[in-house]
């Protein structure tokens, strides 16, 4: 029963996400509303991590397989893609690398400089104590 309970909680939140998508005017998908709702529920303690942990680990583990059908869908839009396949592939590769590098490096740089400042402050404290 444990798995049934956990799965039903996750499904209910997914459903709530779909409801929000219907009634709110923003172009945000149900899954993102659901993610926010789940996070909120966990933060407020309405749901405890143990109540969803096992099934959520399972779903996240299976996640890569879920993308196979959608990717096979590329076959359906083949007639549209055929003529622009090479530029599209180049564009996606170049674009993805540039976004990945910029966002990753920026995040890392800010985290590092923050940690450095923190260390300096701690060192100063130590020196004062001496």
């Amino acid at each position: 029963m444990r798995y049934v309970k956990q799965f039903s909680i996750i499904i209910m939140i997914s459903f709530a996400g779909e409801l929000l998508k219907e009634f709110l005017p923003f172009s945000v998908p149900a899954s993102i509303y659901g993610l926010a709702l789940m996070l909120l529920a966990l933060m407020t303690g309405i749901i405890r991590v143990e109540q969803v942990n096992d099934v959520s680990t399972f779903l996240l583990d299976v996640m890569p397989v879920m993308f196979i059908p959608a990717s096979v869908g590329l076959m359906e839009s083949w007639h549209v893609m055929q003529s622009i396949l090479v530029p599209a592939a180049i564009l996606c590769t170049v674009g993805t690398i540039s976004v990945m590098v910029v966002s990753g490096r920026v995040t890392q740089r800010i985290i590092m400089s923050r940690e450095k400042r923190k260390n300096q402050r701690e060192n100063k404290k130590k020196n004062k104590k001496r």
Partner: protein
Amino acid sequence: MDRLVDIISDSLFFGLGISIICYFAGVFIRERTRLAIANPILIGFLLVIAVLKIFDISYDSYMNGAKYLSYLLTPATVCLAVPLYEKLKLLRENAAAIFLGIMSGIIANAFTIWLICILFTLDETIFATIIPRSVTTAIGMVVSSETGGIENITVALICITGIVGNVIADVVCRVFKINHPVAKGIAIGSSSHVLGTAKAVEMGETEGAMSGLAVAVSGILTVICAPLLLNMVY
């Protein structure tokens, strides 16, 4: 032979089974070769297409069973909140870095696409079609059609971007020395949405959590920014 194809076409478990088997073939090949290009999702979907073509099975009869896998995507995305909750302290500590990282990713995306559009003298429609390329499909589709892009092509580009991101994430992080787990997660999530996140989850809990967060935040920011960017450029 025809009879076999008929049985397969009617079976609900064919689409489901073949997807999982082909994915595992991909996992097997990656473990044997240890090449970045030997990516389970990439190999998996190419194998499925090959099987469908060889046995002349239609996309619809494949999707008959395979659609149930896609149904699970929403609950799985919802579950990304669980690792994120477990890393909440890390998120609070690095909130500024994370937000600026994601924002700079959106600007980098717009800049790259703008450059390519100028280089190949592409018009406004193409720009609007390509801009939402790096966000999750459900958001990207809407952004594309609302800003005057071609929805079908956007969806295909989103899919290609995801696969590319999933394949190159390891190599890019190594070459460009992105080694902080938070930075890795943000990089992958904001560049290649949920498909890349599948890779980030494999890398580690922090990477997965941050990648999921980046998908949500960059998606929402793209909804806000895309029309503004379009106005700025054209």
